[in-house]
């Protein structure tokens, strides 16, 4: 049985940045194997991807996408923007879905485009791709979505967005029966990628 819904990904896009949070638990069956796993991958200078799903698939797929996007940059001398990267990723997911070896991964892709500003893409293992102002994956996402509906605003600062994510994680810790103690947070803005402090259940 898959634990894809027991993991959690959160993403918020505002006027100046896009912020992604991912839980850090790696579990097999009923056992938690580790709680400091990295689920947010740096794809390029201004592009990150949060990936959850079957544990082998997540790493394999994320690295495959990251390396191919780097390869594109070497061959052509310019980088894929977030939209192009999302389309490339979606296409790959869709093609693998129709093969005998599909990747079972849900993901959020956040990046900063020089012309269009920050962008957030929601993608699931059935290769749907939607550009959204905020999004969430997993059961924790159900709990978080109404909080984002309530508090998200376009002109939020990075601190305010981090606070919204803290509220979401607090709700996951309070109401979700799964143990997801740590959430790593990454923000992408015009300056590049920045790693923010981990949101933990112990911290206030």
């Amino acid at each position, binding site marked *: 049985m898959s634990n894809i819904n027991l993991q959690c990904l959160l993403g918020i896009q505002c006027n100046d940045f896009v912020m992604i949070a991912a839980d850090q638990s790696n579990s097999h069956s009923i056992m938690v194997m580790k709680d400091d796993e990295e689920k947010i991958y740096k794809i390029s200078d201004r592009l990150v991807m949060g990936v959850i799903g079957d544990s082998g698939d997540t790493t394999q797929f994320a690295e495959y996408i990251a390396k191919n996007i780097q390869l594109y940059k070497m061959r052509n001398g310019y980088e894929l923007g977030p939209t192009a990267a999302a389309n490339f990723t979606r296409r790959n997911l869709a093609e693998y879905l129709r093969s005998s070896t599909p990747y079972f991964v849900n993901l959020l892709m956040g990046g900063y485009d020089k012309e269009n500003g920050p962008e957030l893409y929601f993608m699931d293992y059935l290769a749907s791709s939607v550009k959204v102002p905020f999004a969430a994956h997993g059961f924790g996402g*159900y*709990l*978080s*979505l*109404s*909080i984002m*509906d*309530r*508090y998200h*605003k376009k002109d939020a600062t990075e601190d305010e967005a981090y606070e919204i994510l803290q*509220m*979401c994680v*607090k*709700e996951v810790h*309070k*109401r979700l029966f799964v143990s997801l103690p740590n959430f790593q947070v990454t923000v992408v803005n015009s300056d590049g990628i920045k790693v923010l402090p981990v949101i933990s259940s112990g911290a206030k």
Partner: protein
Amino acid sequence: MALVDLCRLDEKINLKPASSIASLENDVIGYSQNFINSAQLASPPFANPIETLAQFNSKDETGKDIKIQFDHGTTTLGFRYKGGVLLAVDSRATGGQFIGSQTMKKIVEINDYLLGCTTILFYAFGVLDSGYNWDLTDEEAQELGRRAIYHATHRDAYSGGIIRVYHISDKGWVNISNEDCSELHYKYQEQKGLKDE
């Protein structure tokens, strides 16, 4: 079949179960037309749905009257705070995929001090938990309850209609407000500085 045509037998004997196939085809068309034409809604499979659907909820399979009705896929919430108890509910009643009523009263006014209601949705929990503390004022509590139900109606297709807020204190219960969730939606959007999206 050529011989049948030649003898014109088909005019005298009905060889095909045409009527049953036609009704099946009509059903298929009726239920799938909204896939082709988004403006056409699938209609309930019986005449006069408002009355007929209501009957489904009042009798059990043996035809006996049902004394207690449970609402599925609906949102009601209640919380305790320093000023008493606050209850808030939506008013949509669904039967399968069809909306039976948009104006149902899900809170039963038992007496001056007692109100009864039943389900809470995780969408409502998110807003409720993030805005709750024991020392809320009456107005804050009412707005929190109303907000929580509104956000649940926004995300959940089985919740909607009118949002009713009740407040219970040592003086008994008071019905604070009954507002249409769609009007609330535009009010909240305006507060956020957003025009209709």
